[in-house]
């Protein structure tokens, strides 16, 4: 039986009814990895031995009559920017290539408590900077639907792993769309939770006021189950929000009658591939047919999200990445003369071109004489972008649009033109600037490539988003399509 393409909730049912063991599930996923990983290249590090012994412990617990939590024995892939105790965490960078964290990120502690099984660490754009996975200093991951195309970025390894059956679930991080955009390109479910909903402790920081860890899954139910595990306040993270985490599966009723959904015209106009727009229009008809009330609305400052993001995120990155100096961990350049020379050589040899570009951009935007014109201006525009959403959510329960303006593009197509590459994130960036939650779900295909539908909600309105996403999923079969 091909266990690797089942969902976590299906596998859980089979596990508790003793039709299969956790070890069988884990081995099935590793068999699949052996079969396709050479083509896909989703993983930086595989942790098979650890995974099998973890699965055996789940089987032992089941034998002893313990009740298994929903994700017990479920294989999960983890983006390689989350610290995993004793397991190499590279951020797909030469500068962290040999780093073995002495501690776990809080999300890893949650996964362990849930008795999930970590399959390995997935490839990404270096330090989560990119929209195609081509900025990894290690290798490029391929899109399972067409291996000549990118899986999206920066969590491309995690999205590709789930789409190709190399993991049942995965964790990614989303700073400007890095979960939703690869989810869209790879035809899986990906969610960026509200800023502060998931602890960032142990997540290697890119842009601290925007980064958020979130789930990848094959369907909305699995997304809710993983969200249940990772959400919650963490005293180790000063940006973690104290709030009561509901059971997200309780929102999966299938009923969205009377739910008010706004369709911002800025997300459906110029810059969006007409074929992608058609898919989203069909999705709108489905929501209407289910009794939701859809109306056009406006987020007037949308066009300013891209420039604001590409000043704010690099500014925070330039500050966060100052810690890589070759002193305490990571790569150190050889034959450096004095200390400053060692810093400069280490950083120049250790960081890749995109990371350096963003450090330079951020340092420039924060430097004397430019701070007000660029960085402070961008923060003020961020206020306007957030106010757009606040106003929209006074009238609507959710907002809807495409996740990305295009389907997965070919490898090498945009890599030499940073501005073109940044444009791919135009539908996702504003969500991070405003700190609200959003999901990408499979909504259809264009030329045999998946198209993602994005649903955005009020802060901590993950439940409302899941409710609508689930209703859509129950009435379509896009999420059941698999790459060959």
């Amino acid at each position, binding site marked *: 039986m091909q266990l690797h393409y089942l969902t976590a909730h299906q596998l859980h049912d089979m596990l508790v009814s003793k039709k299969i063991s956790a070890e069988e599930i884990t081995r099935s996923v590793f068999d699949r990895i052996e079969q396709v990983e050479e083509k896909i290249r989703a993983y930086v590090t595989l942790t098979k031995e650890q995974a099998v012994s973890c699965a055996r412990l789940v089987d032992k617990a089941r034998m002893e009559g313990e009740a298994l939590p929903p994700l017990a024995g479920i294989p999960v892939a983890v983006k390689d920017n989350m610290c995993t105790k004793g397991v190499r965490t590279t951020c797909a960078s030469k500068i962290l290539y040999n780093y073995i964290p002495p501690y776990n990120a809080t999300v890893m502690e949650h996964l362990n408590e849930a008795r999930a099984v970590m399959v390995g660490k997935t490839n990404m754009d270096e330090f989560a900077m990119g929209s195609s996975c081509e900025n990894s200093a290690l290798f490029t991951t391929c899109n399972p639907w067409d291996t000549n195309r990118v899986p999206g970025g920066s969590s491309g390894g995690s999205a590709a792993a789930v789409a190709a059956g190399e993991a049942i679930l995965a964790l990614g991080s989303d700073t400007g769309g890095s979960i939703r955009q690869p989810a869209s390109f790879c035809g899986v479910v990906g969610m960026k939770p509200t800023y*502060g909903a998931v602890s960032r402790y142990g997540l290697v920081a890119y842009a601290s006021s925007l980064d958020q860890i979130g789930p990848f899954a094959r369907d909305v139910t699995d997304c809710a189950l993983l969200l249940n595990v990772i959400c919650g306040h963490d005293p180790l993270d000063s940006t973690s929000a104290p709030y009561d985490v509901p059971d997200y599966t309780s929102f999966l009723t299938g009923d969205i009658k009377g739910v008010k959904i706004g369709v911002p015209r800025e997300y459906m106009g110029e810059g969006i591939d007409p074929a992608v727009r058609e898919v989203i229009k069909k999705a709108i008809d489905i929501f209407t047919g289910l009794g939701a009330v859809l109306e056009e609305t406006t987020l007037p400052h949308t066009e300013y999200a891209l420039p604001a993001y590409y000043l704010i995120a690099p500014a925070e990155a330039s500050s966060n990445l100052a810690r890589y100096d070759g002193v305490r961990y990571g790569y150190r350049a050889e034959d450096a003369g004095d200390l400053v020379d060692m810093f400069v050589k280490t950083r120049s040899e250790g960081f890749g071109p995109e990371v350096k570009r963003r450090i330079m951009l951020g340092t420039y935007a924060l430097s004397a004489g430019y701070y007000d014109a660029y960085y402070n201006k961008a923060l003020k525009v961020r206020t306007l972008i957030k106010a757009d959403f606040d106003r929209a959510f006074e009238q609507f329960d959710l907002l809807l649009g495409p996740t990305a303006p295009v389907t997965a593009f070919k490898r090498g197509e945009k890599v030499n033109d940073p501005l073109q590459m940044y444009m791919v994130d135009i539908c996702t960036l504003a969500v991070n600037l405003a700190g609200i939650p959003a999901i990408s779900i499979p909504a259809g295909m264009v030329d045999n490539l998946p198209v993602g539908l994005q649903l955005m909600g009020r802060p901590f309105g993950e439940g409302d988003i899941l409710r609508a996403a689930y209703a859509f999923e129950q009435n379509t079969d896009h999420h059941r399509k698999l790459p060959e």
Partner: protein
Amino acid sequence: MVSIKDVEHVAVLARLSFTDEEKQVYAKQLSDILEHARKLQDLNTDNIPPTAHVLPLQNVFREDRVGEHMLVDKVLANAPDRQDNFFKVPKIV
């Protein structure tokens, strides 16, 4: 317009070094990106407060208690160079 001189100045601040060819590439690319960012100047933001962060943040403190902490060897395990219980770096003075 970002000049080669600007790139050199910012590189010093960022503790990075570039070849002449890289300097040219970065000057061009940063100019393009900043040119795009000039769009923000179209908006009047005189009375708009900046949003650095969407959540009201507060410091997180722990109690000052004697307890178990990470062992020195663990802390130093990832160090590129060490001597006894210290991180070793090139001579400073």
